[in-house]
């Protein structure tokens, strides 16, 4: 699996978000944030009004990282979220080494390995702390495994001292210091987010089949299932005779798959529909887990649920999508290869996200905390903390963020009439994808950049130069053009954007990310309850979906499982969650 591209990054933050919504629970997977990447994945759109406003603070990061290059070359061991050793040797990677004099020996974050390293005192020089929903930060600070960065930030962190980072550092000191008030974590992906070229999370299905059905309106989960059932009826097998199914989830990202319908409905631990926390385990009306279970049950009743729905891992789902046996998912990532293959078979063949006029769309928002589960820290094992800070400073700087997302100035982009623009050949390279594009390293380290793609840089353009209206036009192909034409838009994500602008669909603007990221670590007994609840619902959901004979039986099984969850402490967990949310909110607002 490729990691670190924008889709991977988005998956990462999605996983983080679901974890945030979950509040706590240390048994999340290692796989989050690692879907196969797409060359035609997020390119981003012109920032929304709110995004532009939020970014108007600008990111004139006053770094002078080039000075670091004069220092003696050094190799540091770094443990990155969602960015693995395949980033090494790319153009962007080499440029980082050139600019900082620091060669990164990259280790991909793996939660189990991290725990062992933490216990054994073997952490690498720089780590990204999976802070949300875990007690790792508390353990790292209490055990002295990471060092305070206040002084280093002053001496070796000019970019971190820039105004754009001021609130983020205050936030980090206030909420991520285990009550010490010191600076331990340097946030990444700080700032506003906006609409990309296409909307990746959502109800994704075969566009040509949807067109064939006459673009039926989808107003509910029932409608989704009916549309998929109609598609299966018309196309029951693949060209080579394999049976086609309507949907499935992947099960190796902890409870991600089970919560995935929340990306469409907006339900979850923090419920954007009600603007308040909800008991995701037992409050059926406001639960993303029960939304997903209902969706899968109805699909099962229609005979369109993949038999591997509860055993498939992410890679299995990608394989099914590529073989053509799977017709939908709650994100575009599994369909990258399928789309590339289908495009050769017909101009309008492929998978697209259907813009709904209800629910929620996972896009937008602005945060000073950034992606709360992957802020940088320097460990006590680091022999040269100054150089480690040099590297972090560069990665989070405006220059570093631009480099990560847009490549090297002069090689991948140029200043044209005072405006930075991607070189046409690089745009073509991206469209073609494959190894030559991968060799550039652009977009591979999105989980390490300090500023979001949509942050306005000091040259007046956004950090990710692919996120401009001109770039979107260059990315449309026959499939997206067909889609655009139907919805009367110029790039695919705009179809959903119209619904959001009309107020029909809620966005991440309504998700209080900074409050969620500031929630206290759950005490031990609460964490134990959460682990038990996740285990119960993970094991119980298949029974409800697969064994229920009819709606009445479904209701009964649902109530049985809810009783088990209540007996295991679902209410107690929710009480803690509500209180922790209220406390964090009061602190943020106070």
């Amino acid at each position, binding site marked *: 699996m490729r990691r670190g591209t924008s889709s991977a990054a988005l998956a990462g933050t999605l996983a983080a978000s679901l974890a945030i919504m979950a509040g706590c629970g240390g048994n999340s997977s290692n796989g989050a944030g690692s879907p196969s990447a797409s060359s035609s994945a997020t390119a981003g759109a012109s920032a929304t009004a709110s995004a532009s406003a939020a970014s108007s603070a600008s990111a004139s990061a006053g770094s002078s990282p080039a000075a670091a290059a004069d220092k003696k070359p050094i190799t540091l061991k770094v443990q990155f979220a969602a960015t693995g050793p395949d980033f090494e040797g790319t153009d962007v990677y080499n440029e980082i080494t050139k600019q900082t004099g620091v060669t990164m020996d990259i280790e991909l974050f793996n939660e189990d390995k991290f725990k062992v390293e933490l216990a054994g005192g073997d952490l690498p020089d720089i780590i990204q702390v999976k802070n949300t929903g875990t007690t790792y930060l508390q353990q790292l600070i*209490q055990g002295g495994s990471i060092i305070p960065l206040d002084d280093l930030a002053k001496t070796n962190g000019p970019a971190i001292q820039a105004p754009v980072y001021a609130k983020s550092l205050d936030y980090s000191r206030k909420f991520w210091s285990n009550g010490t008030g010191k600076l331990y974590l340097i946030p990444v992906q700080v700032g506003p987010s906006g609409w990309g070229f296409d909307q990746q999370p959502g109800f994704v299905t075969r566009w040509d089949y949807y067109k064939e059905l006459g673009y039926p309106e989808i107003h509910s989960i029932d409608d989704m299932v009916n549309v998929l059932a109609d598609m299966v009826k018309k196309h029951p097998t693949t060209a080579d005779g394999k049976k086609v199914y309507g949907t499935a989830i992947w099960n190796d990202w902890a409870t991600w798959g089970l919560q995935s319908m929340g990306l469409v409905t907006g339900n979850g631990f923090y419920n954007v529909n009600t603007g308040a926390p909800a008991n995701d385990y037992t409050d059926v009306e406001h639960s993303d887990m029960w939304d997903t279970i209902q969706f899968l049950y109805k699909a099962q009743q229609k005979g369109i649920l993949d038999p591997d729905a509860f055993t498939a891992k992410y890679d299995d789902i990608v394989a099914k999508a590529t073989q053509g046996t799977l017709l939908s998912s709650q994100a575009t990532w599994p369909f990258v290869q399928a789309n590339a293959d289908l495009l050769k078979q017909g101009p309008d063949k492929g998978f697209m996200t259907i813009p709904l006029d209800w629910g929620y769309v996972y896009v937008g928002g602005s945060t000073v905390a950034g992606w709360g589960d992957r802020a940088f820290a320097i460990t006590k094992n680091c022999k040269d903390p100054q150089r480690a800070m040099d590297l972090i400073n560069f990665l989070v700087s405006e220059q570093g963020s631009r480099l990560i997302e847009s490549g090297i100035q002069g090689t991948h982009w140029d200043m044209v009439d005072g405006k930075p623009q991607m070189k046409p050949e690089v745009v073509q390279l991206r469209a073609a994808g494959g190894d030559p594009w991968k060799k550039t390293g652009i977009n591979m380290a999105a989980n390490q950049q300090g500023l979001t793609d949509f942050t306005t840089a000091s040259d007046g353009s956004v950090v990710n130069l692919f996120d401009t209206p001109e770039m979107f036009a260059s990315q449309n192909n026959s499939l997206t053009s067909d889609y655009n034409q139907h919805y009367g838009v110029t790039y695919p994500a705009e179809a959903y954007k119209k619904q959001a602008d009309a107020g029909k669909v809620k966005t991440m603007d309504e998700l209080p990310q900074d409050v969620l990221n500031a929630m206290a670590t759950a005490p031990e007994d609460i964490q134990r309850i959460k682990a038990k609840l996740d285990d119960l619902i993970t094991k119980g959901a298949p029974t409800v979906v697969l064994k229920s004979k009819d709606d009445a039986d479904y209701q009964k099984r649902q109530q049985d499982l809810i009783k088990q969850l209540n007996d295991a402490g679902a209410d107690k967990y929710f009480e803690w969650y509500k209180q922790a949310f209220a406390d964090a909110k009061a602190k943020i607002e106070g």
Partner: protein
Amino acid sequence: MRRMETARSAPRPRKKTLTPSRLTLFALVLPCIALIFAFNYIPLFGWLYAFYDFKPGIPLSQSEFVGLKFFRLLFEDKEQLATVLINTFGLGILSILVSPLSAVFAILLNETASNRFRKVVQTLTTLPNFISWIIVFSLATAIFSSDGMLNGLLMKLGWIHDPTNVLADPGAAWAFQTAVSVWKSLGWGSIVYLAAIAGIDAELYDAAKVDGAGRFQRIRNVTVPGLMPTFFVLTLLNIAGILSVNFEQYFVFNNSLVAAKIETLDLYSVRIGISTGDVSFGTAIGMAKSVVSIVLLFLLNSFSRKVRGQSVF
């Protein structure tokens, strides 16, 4: 003969002095003792963690001593404990029940006339033992999953219309896991029995032949009794290890559908200790398992000594 008996009844007094040859023998056994000490006894230090509220990254010296808290916690969740115990014993008993298959297989191999055929079969059946469980899982997925080879074949033949998936069938989980385990260990397990058969006095077979015993009767009256001591010792050891059977197998084959059927004590310990990060609780579970295993071994050993007059120690 009489002279030998006399010699046995009056053993020479043992020399207690250290001779060079004794030292050599001791030196030879020393690495084994060191290895056992290093890998079997030193890790027992880790049991200490079950009595502290340990969090990775925070030294044990700074962790709170909580006594038997985690053992109490283990017994508080009776439902979970009952499930994992049922699974552990259920799967363990099944593995004991199928253990004679290795002996039967060894006997069948031994009776095969063609030497070449025997060697080929033995090699092919021993080979799976060296395949890692993750590869076995991949193979099983390729064959038995809903879009695997088996379903493809059966659907093409028109025998079934909807694919089956035994990997996700809780009802078949125990039987399937036992079958996979047998496939993997049959050839390897038969080696000990083949060696035991080779050790049976050939004169016994000749005598049986002279007495007019056919092949089946020779097996029943010579081979099987000859294998029994080996079988009992192995079974005894297997029963003692019943709580530790095939952790890797259940770990790789685990999914949300069959989890309630194949979550054994080991898997539970790993889920709590590593996945959930509750190291102390996980250690307590592992420790409880070891204590039960030791008790089980001693019980069975004394039982065997009383009933058959044979025991491991």
